[in-house]
């Protein structure tokens, strides 16, 4: 038995496994995409290819949920920027502080990660109503930023800790203040970490249902996830328009990941390594 034939057989086996898994991973997305272009009469034939591009589904989806997609964008973009900023300004001192006080603060912030959002849900509902931000987009910015504190701090702290400390010490010797060091040197040097976190956060915020369902009621602030969840759980589901709005909701984060995947993997390595 030559070792090359064993190797060859192994390569064939791994390829088969990978291709099989790839088919399983792609099938649901493909089905959703195909279904979104089918006429009501074609829809029950799952495996068929749509005979024409039936845009009516998209028109209905736009009519019913167009505004909520706009809301999703208006909620997600600022909330991602704010949550990155808050994670960075909390992560910076925690990565550089000496002594135990920094560790205590870090530990307390980390415990936030184990809090199931359900335990804050009811008081949060009344709190947001009391400060007049119920059913508003700024209210959603505030909530998403606040609940990003533990994870973003954790992520940025670890990323900052992997930036060579000599850079910090050299800057201080040159007369740079700790404050300026953060804004002028550390933040620009952390671009890949911030990009990775931006993708994680866009996904979390764009995809959120729980806070949206609790804190919004009208089309003024309701994001697309609430609208889609409503379509999906109703008894009589119209799968054409539902799949159309689903496809639209999938595209932004998917596109962001494909565009930034290099820095995403690099940032993940920077944060997860060590």
């Amino acid at each position, binding site marked *: 038995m030559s070792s090359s034939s064993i190797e060859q057989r192994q390569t064939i086996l791994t390829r088969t496994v990978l291709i099989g898994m790839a088919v399983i*991973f792609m099938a*649901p997305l493909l089905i959703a995409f195909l279904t979104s272009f089918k006429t009501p009469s074609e829809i029950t034939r799952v495996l068929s290819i749509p005979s024409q591009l039936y845009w009516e589904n998209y028109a209905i989806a736009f009519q019913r949920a167009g505004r909520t997609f706009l809301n999703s964008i208006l909620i997600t973009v600022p909330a991602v920027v704010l949550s990155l900023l808050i994670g960075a300004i909390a992560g910076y001192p925690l990565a550089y502080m000496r002594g135990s006080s920094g560790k205590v603060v870090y530990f307390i912030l980390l415990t936030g990660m184990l*809090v*199931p959002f359900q335990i804050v849900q009811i008081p949060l509902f009344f709190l947001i109503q009391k400060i007049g931000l119920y059913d508003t987009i700024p209210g959603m910015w505030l909530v998403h930023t606040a609940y990003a504190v533990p994870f973003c701090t954790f992520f940025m702290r670890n990323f900052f*800790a992997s930036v060579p400390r000599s850079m910090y010490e050299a800057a201080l010797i040159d007369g740079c203040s700790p*404050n300026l060091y953060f804004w002028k040197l550390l933040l620009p040097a952390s671009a890949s970490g911030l990009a990775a976190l931006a993708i994680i956060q866009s996904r979390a915020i764009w995809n959120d*249902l729980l806070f949206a369902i609790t804190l919004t009621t009208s089309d003024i602030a309701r994001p697309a996830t609430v609208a889609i969840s409503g379509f999906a759980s109703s008894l009589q589901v119209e799968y054409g328009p539902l799949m159309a709005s689903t496809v639209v909701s999938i595209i932004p984060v*998917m596109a962001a990941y494909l565009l930034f995947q290099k820095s995403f*993997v690099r940032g993940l390595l920077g944060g*997860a390594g060590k």
Partner: protein
Amino acid sequence: MAQPKSRLTRTDWTHIAFLALPAILFVTFYIYPVISSISLSLHDWDGFSPRMRFIGITNYTVLAGQPRFLHAVFNNILWVVFMLIVPTGIGLLLAAILDRGIRGEKAFRIIFFLPFTIPAVAVAAIWRWMYEPDNGLVTTVMNLLGLGSFAQNWLGDPSVVNFSLMGAVAWWTTGFAFLVFFAGLRNIPTECVEAARIEGATPWQVFWKVSFPLLWPSTIIVLGMAAIDAMRLFDVVWSMTKGGPAYSSEVLATQMYDLAFGRFDMGRASAVAVYLFIIAGIIIMPYIVYMSRRVQDSEAE
């Protein structure tokens, strides 16, 4: 004047200034609501009336005797076990195979990660379509393979609904485990692997004896996140089944939501939330302690 406080340097003040806003947010949005929920759970309140009636631990004792509640606890534990094993295991397998340098690696990497990027509500919508009892893809493929007799009413049968939901969630979350493991494998110095290979280790041995132990930082991240996600699980279940049929797929989060915003029983709902908090604490606290201790170790180096 010479109080110890004035010894704080400019660096210390900068640190305090930077931490002020996160600290305020943390107190307002975590500590205050948690305390408030605990206090609410000791009351009988519909969310509207100006007066809340204090009833002590009645909410807790009533829940502990309810089959509906106990079933949700059981489901949550089932989800934790599932999330720790299935998406993690498949993710590790895919990462290990792909790390061996295969043509089209980039395309596979994107394909395996893509489902993770999509909203839970989209997962729910797509998989409700996949699971349509008559002409959904799952049933159709089973019919084509001659396995039609095993086809089920996937989301309508209390005895299979949880597994159907888990199938959708496995599809959705495996990408995260895969990517973290893949990044971790790429981070392993090639000399370690080469050395083992020269010593005559098989790929299987190289993986379990060399690569996997070095993957520990990735593993702990994946497991921790899986446990956290399992405890918080809400969106997929809510959008796919609303906890049904007959509460069979209910988890604590969906039960709590139903009690609070469907039945306006804020006290009982808060008690469910506190139970969830306690269970999550027991399961996830070791992870948090481990993470913060690892930070201290890495700084001591």
